């Protein structure tokens, strides 16, 4: 059995590299970048959308980072796997939520930092405006809880925190949402996240 993860750690592949490290998986790492590499014809045979990450798990080709993670956790089990159907539903819910409510706005802020000329100030303002109500919801969900599903760090936390990690890079001001700030700091301090960032 062999798992291959395509995508560099400064791309959305970090989300999968983090989980692979949490699960202690052996995997082959193929450093495809997002500024050309993912549009090469050979790569687009794996993912016709032309995006990283992609996994090849013994011949099963999957894309969409958070879907790959939900597959891998289901396959390998362990403490990050929700323990019942309701919690599995909540893990799915939060994974979709972070993509629909947070990711696009977070990416606008990140791109403004990295490619300031490409992103209009109006887009930045709109992105900031969208994040406020979304993070209010997340802050409420973390009220009185260490983790999204209760006391244990699960795939729900990993999938959401892996997207919010971009906002640490842009030094987003979390002071109005202390539950999110404390939780995100805990999540990103995990050794598996630190190891994933150093993937070579």
């Amino acid at each position, binding site marked *: 059995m062999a798992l291959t993860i395509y995508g560099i750690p400064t791309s959305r592949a970090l989300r999968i590299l983090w989980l692979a490290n949490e699960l202690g998986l052996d995997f082959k790492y193929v450093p495809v970048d997002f500024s050309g590499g993912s549009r090469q014809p050979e790569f687009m045979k794996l993912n*016709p*959308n032309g995006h990283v990450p992609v996994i090849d798990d013994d011949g*099963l080709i*999957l*894309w*969409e980072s*958070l*879907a*790959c993670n*939900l*597959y891998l956790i*289901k*396959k390998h089990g362990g403490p990050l796997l929700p323990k019942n*159907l*309701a919690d*599995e*539903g*909540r893990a*799915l*819910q939060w*994974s*979709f*939520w972070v*993509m*629909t*409510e947070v*990711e*696009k706005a977070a990416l606008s802020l990140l791109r403004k930092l990295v490619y300031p000329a490409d992103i209009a100030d109006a887009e930045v303002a709109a992105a900031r405006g969208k994040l406020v*109500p*979304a993070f*209010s*919801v997340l802050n*409420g*969900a973390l009220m009185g809880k260490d983790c999204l599903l209760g006391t244990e760090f699960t795939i729900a936390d990993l999938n959401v925190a892996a997207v919010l990690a971009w906002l640490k890079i842009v030094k987003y001001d979390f002071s109005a949402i202390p539950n999110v700030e404390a939780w995100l700091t805990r999540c990103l301090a995990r050794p598996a996240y630190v190891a994933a960032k150093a993937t070579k």
Partner: protein
Amino acid sequence: MTLTIYGATLSRAARVLWMAKELGLDFRSVQISPDDTHVPELLRVNPNGRIPAIDDGGVLLFESLAINLYLLKKHGGPLLPDNISDEGRMVQWSFWAMTELEGPLVQLLLNVIRPETISPADVAAATEKLPHVLRVLEGALTGREYLLGSAFTGADLNVASVLSYLKTIVNYDFGSFPNISAWTSRCLGRPAFSAAAAVTAS
């Protein structure tokens, strides 16, 4: 156990109503308009103030496609893939529908139903982007009746329920995408899709 589905029939709640009908579930429908989502009854279930949301015997969930995957896993049946690889593909296509397809599609939908809310530049960008997205789906349906093979599954329902407005409201020209055209007709021709479209408050 009782299932309550929050959201107007003509909204993203249609996706969940379709799944509930496919699964033959008893449920209560609370018709909340997309324009009136910040009401206490809904905010209790979904603090994001969006539809759909469900209360399934005390399990509160939001995000339409996550709700569908939850309901399908709970109730099983022919729409549920029988192996982990196909389950992974179903989840992949569900995310793809939200991250790649829904954005440009909603722009074209708004251009029809609320043209005053959208700029010509946004319409142009969505019009340019959508064929690239649809090409991926067209390729995946080559030589196959459905996304995972020969049977209609949750993968098809989740993607087709997002795509449906292109056919029913936007009148999008699928001429370059014959596989999608035929597949969409098969999916939307299912009795449960029609039954979902006829749901009223209960």
